[in-house]
């Protein structure tokens, strides 16, 4: 029997105070997610995100389906057989709160022709709703299918990492609400250290299925995620792409061409990028 000892592995994250100029993000530890969806509600309440429809999906306990313009946090549920070689032969019910990854190399931002998408002083990626004209180029650019246009409004919406709260020294609403600290907010570097330590702990417990996702650039081609995860199975189980890549990898060269051309032509090139979407 395991002996109870030592402090809890996570400090109380609600004391984390965002500072401008510091890269901050989320570390979502799915191994302690209880699937309560407090994050979905806290997000909607703070950001006044409208409802996403009342549809019984028959998909475990998930009835919001996927991230989109009206769902900025989304809890996935996966009912899985016992982990091979891990656990004690019991089935697993895996839950994880998905969110915009605030990619280090963000395609949505790069394709945005209006400058509505910007990287903030916290290194997060936000849509400025007073600038967005609803062109929708960002939508197919996102390798995770996060950003989307709101039907009744036309503009693009996604997680802002509660930019307004960050500016006021508060942490994002989802992280504050999360009952178990599965969602942790803080400076990226500190979160990375925590994530690696937690992975180590789980490995020592024999949980071979544990893995990190997007903690750095090694498993993706988006330069690492500013919202990364600890998963207890393949990314696909959580409906995450196995090796996400920036849809605009070749962008710098193309931008040169675009800048040299007339505006109309540039728009045409952008449309071509758009075609490369998910």
């Amino acid at each position: 029997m395991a002996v109870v000892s030592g402090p809890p592995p996570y400090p109380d994250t609600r004391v984390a105070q965002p500072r401008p100029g510091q890269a901050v993000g989320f570390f979502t530890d799915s191994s302690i997610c209880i699937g309560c969806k407090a994050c979905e509600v806290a997000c909607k309440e703070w950001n006044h995100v409208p409802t996403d429809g009342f549809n019984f999906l028959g998909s475990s306990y998930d009835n919001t389906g996927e991230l989109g313009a009206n769902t900025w946090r989304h809890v996935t549920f996966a009912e899985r057989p016992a982990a091979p070689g891990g656990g004690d032969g019991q089935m697993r019910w895996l839950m994880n709160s998905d969110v915009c990854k605030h990619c280090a190399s963000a395609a949505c931002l790069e394709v945005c022709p209006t400058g509505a998408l910007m990287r903030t002083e916290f290194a997060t990626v936000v849509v400025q709703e007073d600038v967005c004209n609803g062109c929708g180029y960002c939508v197919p650019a996102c390798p995770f299918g996060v950003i989307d246009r709101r039907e009744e409004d036309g503009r693009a919406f996604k997680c802002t990492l509660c930019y307004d709260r960050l500016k006021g020294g508060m942490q994002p609403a989802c992280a504050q609400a999360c009952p178990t600290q599965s969602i942790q907010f803080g400076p990226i570097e500190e979160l990375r250290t925590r994530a690696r330590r937690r992975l180590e702990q789980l490995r020592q417990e024999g949980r071979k299925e544990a893995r990190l996702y997007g903690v750095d650039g090694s498993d993706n081609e988006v330069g690492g995620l500013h919202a990364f995860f600890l998963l207890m199975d393949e990314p696909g189980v959580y409906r995450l792409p196995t090796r996400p890549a920036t849809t605009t990898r070749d962008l710098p060269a193309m931008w040169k061409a675009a800048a040299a051309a007339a505006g109309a032509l540039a728009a045409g090139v952008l449309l071509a990028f758009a075609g490369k979407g998910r």
Partner: protein
Amino acid sequence: MANERLRSWPVVRQLTGADRLGLSSAVRSPRSDGLTPRTSEARVVKSICPFCAVGCGQRVYVKDGEIVQIEGDPDSPISRGRLCPKGAATRQLVSGPLREYRVRYRAPHSRAWRALPLEQAMDMIADRVISARNDHWEDRDSEGRLLNRTMAIGSLGGATLDNEENYLIKKLFSALGIVQVENQARI
């Protein structure tokens, strides 16, 4: 003209400005610059979540007489600032679109609700309590033992009521001889 337009296009501004890597300050909108949390100028009232019995601390933010946000109170040693989906939805509970703000009255055999002034409703209810007591009072049982009650009136609720409210209900109803005072704790 075309060049000017091109230069003002944020993409080009980013590519030519000092912001080539950050893609940041060059495109900041006035709204982004002025953004503050809507709680920053609100009055904070300390409260407790009304859903389950864990008793999570809540902070209720009030601005211009409106509740603008309800979230967890980090000071609470019970909840440490956290809330579940119901607790996080409390603002919709207290100011949701389906809340009732006017008395509704349905007359016997009627097919529809109608409005009724609160004062009149209170008066009518008081009359009904008095006459149900008068008509169905039990002083003593068949063997002469004290009963001092009416079995014609009952009440049920409320496990989400305050202690002070339950106290007044039990006190008043007992004094009226109503013994069928019950609540969710039984159910």
